[in-house]
């Protein structure tokens, strides 16, 4: 019923909330609830709903984890302005548990989406593209890499 909220040593207020208990659960719950909401609004087949959820998840997580840089408040005087949220978590340490979890979630969503649409072609191609982009963006070798200068600092 109760969990301990231990303070972390991460000084970056933008990312330290991810180390507290309950984050993984709420992430999975939000994804599941949005599937239910999409099913109820569009009235489509479950597979189509999972594909829609997968795309929206791709769009939202790519935008907030790998595109937006900096922090939403000015307290830290802009020292993280060149880093995306993914590069800021846990001070840039790679292959931590949180990073592994966040890499696995899009893959699991992809598997569910492709399975429930029976691997039919137009959906499958886009799903695969989405998961490929997301997983490659999370590789340790891509830390602070800006391909062709896209999204680099001014």
């Amino acid at each position, binding site marked *: 019923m109760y969990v301990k909220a231990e*303070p972390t040593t991460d000084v970056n207020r933008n990312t330290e909330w991810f180390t507290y*208990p309950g984050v993984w659960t*709420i992430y999975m719950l939000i994804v599941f609830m949005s599937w239910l909401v999409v099913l109820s609004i569009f009235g489509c087949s479950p597979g189509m709903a999972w594909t829609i959820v997968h795309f929206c998840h791709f769009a939202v997580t790519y935008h907030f984890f790998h595109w937006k840089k900096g922090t939403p*408040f000015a307290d830290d005087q802009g020292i993280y302005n060149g880093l995306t949220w993914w590069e800021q978590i846990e001070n840039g340490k790679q292959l931590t548990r949180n990073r592994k979890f966040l890499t696995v979630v899009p893959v699991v969503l992809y598997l569910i989406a492709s399975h429930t649409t029976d691997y039919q072609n137009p959906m499958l191609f886009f799903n695969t593209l989405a998961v490929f982009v997301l997983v490659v963006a999370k590789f340790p070798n891509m830390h602070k890499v800006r391909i062709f200068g896209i999204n680099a600092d001014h």
Partner: protein
Amino acid sequence: MIKIPYLTALSTYFSYGLLFAFGQFRDFFRKIFDWCHSSNLQGYAPICLGLEDFYIRRLYLRIQDCFGRPISSSPDAWFDVVERYSNDNNKTLKRTTKVTRCLNLGSYNYLGFAAADEYCTPRVIETLKRFSPSTCSPRVDGGTTTLHNELEECVANFVGKPAALVFGMGYATNSAILPVLIGKGGLIISDSLNHNSIVNGARGSGATVRVFQHNTPSHLEEVLRQQIAEGQPRTHRPWKKIIVIVEGIYSMEGELCKLPEIVAICKKYKAYAYLDEAHSIGAVGKTGRGVCELLGVDTADVDIMMGTFTKSFGSCGGYIAGSKELIQYLKYTCPAHLYATSISPPAAQQIISSIKVILGEDGSSRGAQKLARIRENSNFFRSELQKMGFEVLGDNDSPVMPIMLYNPAKIPAFSRECLKQNVAVVTVAFPATPLLLARARICISASHTREDLLKALEVISQVGDLVGIKYFPAESEKQHQEPGAIKLE
């Protein structure tokens, strides 16, 4: 250690996610609408990048009326809060001329010196007439009056160090002293929950900064050992100097620092210890000399002691106390001493008089009474709140007690409902605290009478039921079985 109910954690994440999503939608539509209108920047760069003020615009401004409430009297136990109204959904607030008399649970008025005092105020007025409100000069030029010298001796005696140096502003003390004490090639190890002034001073110094887990001496030792073994970042040369910075009472947690263990570790590894006693000087300890007296640490073991006069002494300014050589060095190098205007003479006299009252040198026992009263008040209030089922942080004897709220919607609810019943509380949220752990911070004062505290308890209990923050079962007799330090684990 904060225990949060699991469902509350989940709902807090969800609420913040929802607020964040709404903010992003509104920003998106605002960008589309503004595309049509030309910008009036005329070629200049915008002051903030789009993302930097997102939190202020979309989250803070929604509940702006809970922060920054203007008051129109001295911050005594009861004070006048000016009413404000807003016509555009809290984007701008306008003051009215009406005031409400409210119970003050937010000011750092630990010993009750914030209002007129029978010993201090006449002396302050006399000093105001003699020396005028400002010295109009830095210490080095013409701003050192006899009052400043007397104040520095007084502070050094009070704190228990050979010499002291006094500055006009507490925040500036930390942020101006740290760059002078340490520079590139040095190492600062600071507690993860240190105040913003220390963080800014550490960043401004150019030294490498490492953080250890809050109040965990074993982790401090681990970090020290690792850093000493590795040396400076790329060259791996030994560090020029290592300073460990901790606070006496952490203002957001109300916890006391584990000073004996930390000082022992500093001595073992030959690191300097810097103690920021902003909230503990004058408020804890048998004679009010701070956390060293309370925990039995010899002041000679703490190398640099810093504090402010805003909390227990009812004045403004900060001090640094240390060895004579250190203070002499700081007098030649610290920019806050060389270039900043010296502390205002009436403020200095207030500090001298209040120290005399605390030590009993004014001929009465009011100082000892105040210290006893604040201890009694804090312990009573904390135990009553815990009995009602609130989650209250902080150690026994600490006059700061945060009540956990968690959900972002409960912050304005608690604040506004309390204000309706004439109790003024301060609520703190992200980014001053971690995202999950929003809280209402109560500061108890020696000038709160028992009736004031009972009224506050009644109001907080009612509002707590309404808002739903009694996360623990209300116990009547169970939790009082273990006496002594009832730290909420």
